[in-house]
């Protein structure tokens, strides 16, 4: 930026305020607390007072020269060295605002979480607001809870008491815009925006609201700070550090070589722009790290269902369609959401196994006596159905001999059934489920990792945070999530740093069912199973600017119509949509790399 001194502009001679206050750490009690009588044989007042004096320096908040969070979170997260470097850079040099622009999959969430935790441990941050695309809200909540021991509340949770009082909130961008007046009734200590390139458009309401939000710390996370135009970068830096780059016109005059498309930097100003960006941005390229992942091969088995199984699936799906049609619409959005979730759960059971859908239907019959006859009739039919997937699984396991295998399923009933049939073939098999206590879980993992257990069947509820890559490199998805991130989570149990062999992923789907279409027409088209870790989130946020819920879309397609060919075409169209989103994302990555190389 060109600068010159002038007396033309009247800059207010405002000095930052200094607040000096005296407070009580806690109300002083009315009686001396440390008397001999109260604290046993050897704890007179002087001893406690002496201990308090000794402990004083331990209660002093450490400076940022030394990070506290990695040690405090020792059993929750093990950050990479490049992540720690980013945390240090942000805290020491870029405070109080920074753009975290690492390549996809390098763990920007971990970096943001560590920064937040460092600030929280020092009492510098008490309130925080996380803005994220809808598809990532739960993931943020889980990560913050699991890795950082921080309880953030989602705005659609029952316990959410309102923006005015809730100290730590995770919120979607549309919700944030809708509730902006209430959100901005108080200042926030820290604002974290995931997929911040969604705020690049300066005239969008979401960008304006974010700019106006009163927040001291601002962390903007995006892998593509230059998503479409150079002005995206301007917009992000201006959001982090208002005024740093002047006005947008000034920025364009200075740096943009092609004002129309705004994608080319004036060559003579490229270095300046990169330096300016570096002042406020931390960017780690994949090539800057020593991270190497093993390869991945995917084998999807499209299995022909037995006639009874096919009929059962068809009838249960018809029942689900009827339920869907009956779901309330319009103003009863909440009720409709609840019904959709119920249908989704039933559909998952149906995809899983006859045992699982039987159990789910029975549970529904108890809950909805008016449907009892119809539902129980379907449930009773399940008892006689054997899934074709079972025999294929047994064949696969026979081929694999003693190779350790990790099998994922959505339902407990399926896990129990599989355990039964696999164990009957003489293969040591156990189920890893959410109901196990910590020591039981550890024992199972140890057995699996030391080779005394060759098959581990896990439900998703129990599989979070597992490290099973020491001996195992084969994952079987006996049934599938429609949320691709959950699939990635499953594979991530063995496909992680330290895996030495190529990971083999086997997907079991029944031929010409919705699962089959999803895998063939959607996931395979998108190369989902071999996509760079983390790229999936950005693809999903790319579609409809982050307001996209893939599971809901698939379910809607399934339930709207019984015509299989139309369903196939619509899933294929959805796949095309995702592919073009992926292409846009790749283009954005490429532009970002070119501008910020």
């Amino acid at each position, binding site marked *: 930026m060109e600068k010159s*001194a002038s007396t033309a502009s009247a800059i207010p001679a405002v000095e930052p305020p200094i607040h000096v*206050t005296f407070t009580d*750490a806690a109300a002083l009690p009315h009686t001396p*607390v440390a008397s001999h009588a109260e604290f046993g*044989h050897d704890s007179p007042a002087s001893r406690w007072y002496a201990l308090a004096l000794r402990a004083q320096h*331990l*209660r002093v908040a450490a400076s940022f020269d030394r990070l506290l*969070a990695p040690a405090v979170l020792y059993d929750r997260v093990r950050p990479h060295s490049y992540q720690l470097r980013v945390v240090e850079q942000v805290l020491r040099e870029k*405070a109080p605002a920074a753009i975290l622009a690492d390549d996809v999959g390098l763990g920007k969430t971990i970096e943001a979480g560590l920064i937040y935790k460092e600030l929280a441990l020092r009492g510098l941050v008490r309130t925080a607001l996380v803005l994220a695309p809808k598809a990532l809200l739960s993931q943020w909540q889980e990560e913050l809870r699991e890795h950082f021991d921080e309880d953030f509340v989602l705005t659609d949770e029952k316990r959410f008491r309102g923006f005015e009082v809730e100290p730590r909130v995770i919120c979607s961008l549309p919700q944030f815009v809708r509730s902006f007046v209430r959100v901005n009734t108080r200042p926030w200590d820290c604002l974290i925006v995931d997929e911040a390139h969604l705020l690049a458009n300066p005239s969008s309401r979401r960008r304006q609201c974010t700019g106006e939000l009163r927040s001291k710390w601002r962390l903007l996370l995006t892998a593509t700070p230059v998503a479409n135009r150079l002005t995206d970068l301007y917009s992000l830096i201006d959001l982090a550090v208002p005024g740093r780059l002047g006005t947008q016109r000034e920025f364009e005059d200075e740096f943009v070589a092609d004002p129309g498309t705004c994608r080319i930097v004036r060559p003579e100003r490229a270095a300046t722009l990169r330096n300016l960006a570096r002042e406020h941005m931390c960017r780690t390229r994949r090539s800057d790290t020593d991270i190497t992942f093993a390869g991945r091969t995917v084998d999807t088995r499209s299995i022909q269902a037995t006639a009874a199984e096919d009929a059962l699936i068809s009838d249960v799906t018809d029942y689900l369609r009827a339920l869907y049609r009956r779901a309330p619409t319009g103003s009863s959005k909440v009720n409709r959401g609840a019904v959709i979730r119920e249908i989704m759960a039933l559909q998952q059971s149906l995809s899983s196994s006859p045992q699982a859908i039987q159990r789910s239907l029975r549970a529904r019959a108890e809950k909805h006596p008016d449907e009892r006859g119809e539902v129980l009739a379907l449930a009773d039919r399940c008892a006689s159905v054997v899934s074709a997937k079972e025999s294929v699984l047994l064949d696969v396991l026979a081929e694999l001999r003693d190779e350790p295998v990790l099998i994922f399923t959505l339902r407990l009933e399926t896990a129990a059934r599989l355990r039964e049939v696999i164990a009957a073939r003489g293969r040591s098999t156990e189920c890893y489920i959410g109901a196990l206590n910590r020591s039981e879980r550890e024992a199972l993992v140890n057995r699996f990792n030391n080779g005394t257990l060759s098959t581990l069947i896990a439900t998703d509820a129990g599989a979070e945070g597992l490290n099973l890559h020491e001996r195992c490199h084969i994952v079987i998805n006996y049934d599938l999530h429609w949320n691709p991130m959950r699939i990635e989570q499953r594979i991530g149990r063995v496909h992680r740093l330290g895996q030495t062999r190529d990971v083999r992923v086997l997907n079991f789907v029944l031929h010409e069912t919705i699962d089959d279409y999803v895998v063939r027409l959607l996931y395979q088209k998108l190369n989902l199973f071999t996509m760079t870790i983390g790229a999936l989130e950005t693809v999903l946020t790319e579609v409809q600017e982050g307001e996209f819920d893939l599971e809901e879309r698939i379910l809607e397609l399934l339930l709207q119509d019984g015509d299989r060919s139309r369903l196939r075409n619509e899933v294929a169209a959805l796949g095309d949509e995702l592919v073009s989103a992926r292409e846009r994302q790749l283009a954005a990555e490429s532009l970002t790399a070119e501008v910020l190389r």
Partner: protein
Amino acid sequence: MRWFWQRRRNRQAAVETPPSAPIPAAPASVGTVQRAPTTSGRLGQSRHLSSELLELARDYLQAVGGRVRVEDEDVLSATLPDGRNVRYTTTLAKARSDESMTLLVEGSEALAAMLDDIAARSRLTALWLDAATDPVALALDRCAPPAARCGRCVESSSGEDAQTALCPVCPLRESRIVLRWRTPGALTARVMRQEQAVSVELAYLVVARDRQGRRDEWLRHAVDVATGQAIPPLSAPALAVAQPDTLPADYERTLTAVRASAERSLGEPLVASGMFLRQRSLDEYLRRLEEVATTFDRLQRESPEMARAAKAGRGRELAALAEVYAVDVEAQLESACFITSPVVLVALRPQKGRGEVLLRVDVGRQHVLPPQCAACGTAVRAGQVCDEGHVVCAACFATCSTCGAWQCPVCNEASQSVCVKCGQPTVESHRIDRHPEETAAIFTARHLEALPPEMWLTAMEWLLSCQRITTEARRITGDLVIWQGQSETGKVMVAAQRSPGRWALDEIAIRQAAAHLAPEQPAMARLMLSTAPATGEAAQVARQLGIQLMDRHSLETLLSGLASAHERERERQIADMQARADAAGSARQAMLDAVDAIGQALTPVRRARKAGTQTSAGTSGSRKLIEARAAIERASLAWETLVNGWTESFSERPARNGSLVISGEVSQFAEMIERVAHLQPVLLEAARLLMETPARGEGGYTTLRQAVLEEYQARCDAWRWRIRSYDPEVWSDFTRAWNAKAAAKAAEATTAAGHATARADKAQAQAPRAG
């Protein structure tokens, strides 16, 4: 005589074994508590713990009644009174591999819970102290006459120097009370009375938050309830033998009064902390302020329709910026400890003189409270004693300007204007305003001096960084802090001394510091910082020892420079831009004058001379014309370069503040003037040659000549308008400094020149040529 004080009353608690956990020595004044040594005596048993955290955990667990086992140097386990077992380690790998172990690190939940419990249990305590010393011996030891042939400490009336050690051997430096009796001589002492004194010790956690993070510091402040005087916090040895007590009946009222007193005393260090932290970020803040303000100003200019929104945005962002750079200094009262201690009133008097002074000797704390000034009531650390035993501070006594005798204002209250010795009515009052109001809004040496200990260290390191010295290692030796660092020229050793009470920095202090500043490496740069004013001798010794001395005066200068750095930088930029504008203005005028002269030279005169005969004269005339055209073209090329240089000296876009950016240096504009002086005659000569050619001729001659003339007249016009496009005299306003109409006219003239050139080229091709 050894003084034995009887225990006040028989207390059950008193028979308990006193805690033997080592308590670090507390500094003699408000300050922090140092770290404990890594082993503890009784509790350590045979195992040595590798970490202070584990030592604290061990002592804490024992204090709550747990049975503690030291499993390893980094592992501690305990069975709590409720039967629970706990295991702590400070080793990450052990905590990861063994689920039963809890990692004990700073910030961890386990440690936080422990610290919170300790804090809660020690929030309000009461202790009492046994007599621990002979009060008479202590009183005699702590009082001293002024240094031989000196006495400035008891005489000085300057507000800054009052009660300060002004000579190297001043007893004040040993924390003694300096009293000058009218009748000098050895002192005798006797016990007058014994009583109980109650003092209150408050512990504050001072949390200072600014843009760069958070800085915590503990401050302990003790007050003698009877006199209201601040006294040193309880020392570690005294605390180690203190007994539990019950709170005084009126403790709440006392606490309120003591808190008020503490807040008055701590106010200055806290405000100083705030001033320092603000100063540290001020430069950056002002830069950001300028960025934000000018950006929004520009936005208003760019889009007048958005003026209102831009104005609101400007206000919002400026307020947000002030909030980001705001400094919060919060002193949290963490604990209050009532300490009852035996006090003996000891009367001191010279063996051969009169005048008895009563001193309060706290035999529990082993501390002598300074007497109060008989005139103004302030605590006197250095004063004079009259024959009636009135202790008078330096600010209250009067001196006869005739005979020099000093007078007690209490004894001679009725006749203060007459000297008691010589009877002359010429008495000069020493009373001055002891604490002139500090009105400075910037961070000064006075603030630096008032900073709490840890903040003072931070401030010193900041001062070093301002001088581009990066510190690498720090050690504290007595009252000296030594840094090893790196400056732009190489390695540097720095010593900083914090003299209490603004004492003068003497040559002894310099020599002491020099001993720590790598004397074996004479080539290394050495620097000494002190908030005390250096004496002349000290400055001389520093020079001799090769130490760069930054005493109070130098620091004042440095701080004042830093405070105005941004403003000065702004002023420098404005001055620089003005100088460039002046130089550019002169160059502009010189160029315009030259262009006008050339333009005039190219104006056709009325005398028309026909070229010679059609063949010879026409051919000769054409040749001359072509030669003249070539000459003027060569000269005008240089002019073109000159005018290009002129336009390139300015930015086409306004600066963010709306001014014209003059990128050309003063020297470049001066060079332009020189080039004008050199090129103008050349071009004029070329114009003369052109104009001397016949006005008319045959065979296309006239057309060629007309075209050439038009070409250079148009070029002159283009130069003129290009030069006029920028007016550096009004550089502060781009809209006035940049003349868009002139630029447009320049473009028109350039086009016209191009057309004329084409015509001339065509005509020249058809013109008759010789040979």
